[in-house]
């Protein structure tokens, strides 16, 4: 059906999006790549110049680097486990016939709409504060010593906050998937005498597998670049205890002005993200063929 004319019109209509995104993707990344092989310090320009791979070596030999990678992975994996397992359980609970389902859904989904700095500050000051937080109140009520979350378990605290933000997302998507499960299939399984566990294992879980994959992949993209939550609560500390890769790159670039090292870190972050992106694209692409 497509004539020559409509085809060139289509190209014309697509051009702005494609060109803008192309520039957006290529230009800054090219700069970063270039900087990653340079010694460049805006505050001390005397020694600027090409340095080969030494930025990567420096970044690599920085003890903070390994820790930041480990912290990044710890955040991604822990939050994924909490949100996926919690999301499945919550979705199954909300899929039951309950009174006031609409309101319950709204309450559960709400944290997702809270901007990261607010979420972080609220948890930091009102929930986890060692003196005035609700957790401290609860601990004192039971006669225990309140936990100094950000001093002693900074990474766990960050993970809890981020998990709170993403649990609603996982729940909502898994619930959507669950609701498309054929009711008759469930009934048939029940009539055949399948118990709750075997129904869950052989019917519900396989049905949700696609949605679970999507949740894992999409959350991974966002979780790899957790930033505001760390900035507002622990500022990466104590030491580097809660510094992830994005936060380390930010520190190197805008606080220490070690642009070369920061850029090398940025490139490493790109490589990490690309590994994940590869799997995301495969999953989403498969769906496009349907």
């Amino acid at each position: 059906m497509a004539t020559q004319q409509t085809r060139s019109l289509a190209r014309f209509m697509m051009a702005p999006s494609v060109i803008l995104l192309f520039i957006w993707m290529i230009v800054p990344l090219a700069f970063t790549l270039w900087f990653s092989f340079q010694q460049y310090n805006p505050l001390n320009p005397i020694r600027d110049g090409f340095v080969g791979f030494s930025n990567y070596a420096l970044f690599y030999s920085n003890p903070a680097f390994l820790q930041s990678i480990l912290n990044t992975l710890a955040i991604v994996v822990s939050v994924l486990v909490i949100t996926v397992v919690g999301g499945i359980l919550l979705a199954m609970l909300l899929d039951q016939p309950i009174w006031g389902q609409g309101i319950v859904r709204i309450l559960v989904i709400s944290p997702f709409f809270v901007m990261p700095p607010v979420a972080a500050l609220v948890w930091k000051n009102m929930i986890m504060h060692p003196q005035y937080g609700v957790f401290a109140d609860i601990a004192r009520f039971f006669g225990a010593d309140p936990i100094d979350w950000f001093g002693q378990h900074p990474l766990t605290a960050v993970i809890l906050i981020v998990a709170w933000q993403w649990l609603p997302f996982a729940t909502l998507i898994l619930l959507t998937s669950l609701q498309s499960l054929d009711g008759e299939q469930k009934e048939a399984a029940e009539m055949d005498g399948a118990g709750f566990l075997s129904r869950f294992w052989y019917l519900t879980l396989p049905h949700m597998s696609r949605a679970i994959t999507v949740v894992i992949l999409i959350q991974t993209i966002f979780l790899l670049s957790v930033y505001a939550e760390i900035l507002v609560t622990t500022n990466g500390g104590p030491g580097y205890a809660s510094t992830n890769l994005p936060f380390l790159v930010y520190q190197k670039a805008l606080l220490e002005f070690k642009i070369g090292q920061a850029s090398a870190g940025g490139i490493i972050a790109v490589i990490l993200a690309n590994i994940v992106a590869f799997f995301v694209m495969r999953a989403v692409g498969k769906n496009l063929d349907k």
Partner: protein
Amino acid sequence: MARAVTTQHKTIATTAAWIVALLIFFPILYTIITSFKSEQEAIQGFALIPSGTTESYAEVQAQSGYFKFFLNSVILSVGSTVLALLIAVPAAWSMAFSPTKRTKDILMWMLSTKMMPAVAVLFPIYLIFRDTGLLDSRIGLTVMLMLINLPIVVWMLYTYFREIPGEILEAARMDGASLWNEIIYVLTPMAVPGIASTMLLNIILAWNEAFWTIRLTTTDAAPLTAFISSFSSPQGLFWAKLSAASTLAIAPILIMGWFSQKQLVRGLTFGAVK
């Protein structure tokens, strides 16, 4: 055919669901409650009933000019979304209605730009913004947020447009409708719901974006994300004011979010889960 549900089963499920839901919602609820306390009350220990004072709200505005940040958030999120729609609607349209062999590749490539970690281009963008005077400007940040969300906008619109049956277009053409009439009278009415949902979700995403909005602004263009982050280094205890500022920052988007649950699933999963 409805499943037989016992009242007992429903009561248990309801109780469990409400307890969990209230626990999850609690930090937000407690923030709202605390915002109606005085600073003294706020640090006196756990209490669910506030005195109902609104002094914190007045003080937040008086001390920090809260409204300016709010206005910036509105301008940035709405502006970037409208800009993204203007650019994305034609693209999504042509991909949905005259797809070529490469359409899928282009869509996938667009999605891939979304996966680039922001931190990898932090310094180049910072330099470009500084040297062109865009640092702390609404225009620069609007463009930035537009670029970040453009792939999602194109994708969402594409999945909506693809559901508009092509036969209707052909029928209109047979009846002699010009391209212009086709767009105004046939396509637009069918596309409006999809465009509206896309707009809603993207305003939410832009409103909550908390990397570029914090790093590329200082005062003039700073939206609520930057404003709230400035509370992170506390000078004294001001739980009530913090709560009031937080409540104001999340309220509009929370309400919008409640209306966009369905679109959220679709938009954030790139149409993979509906």
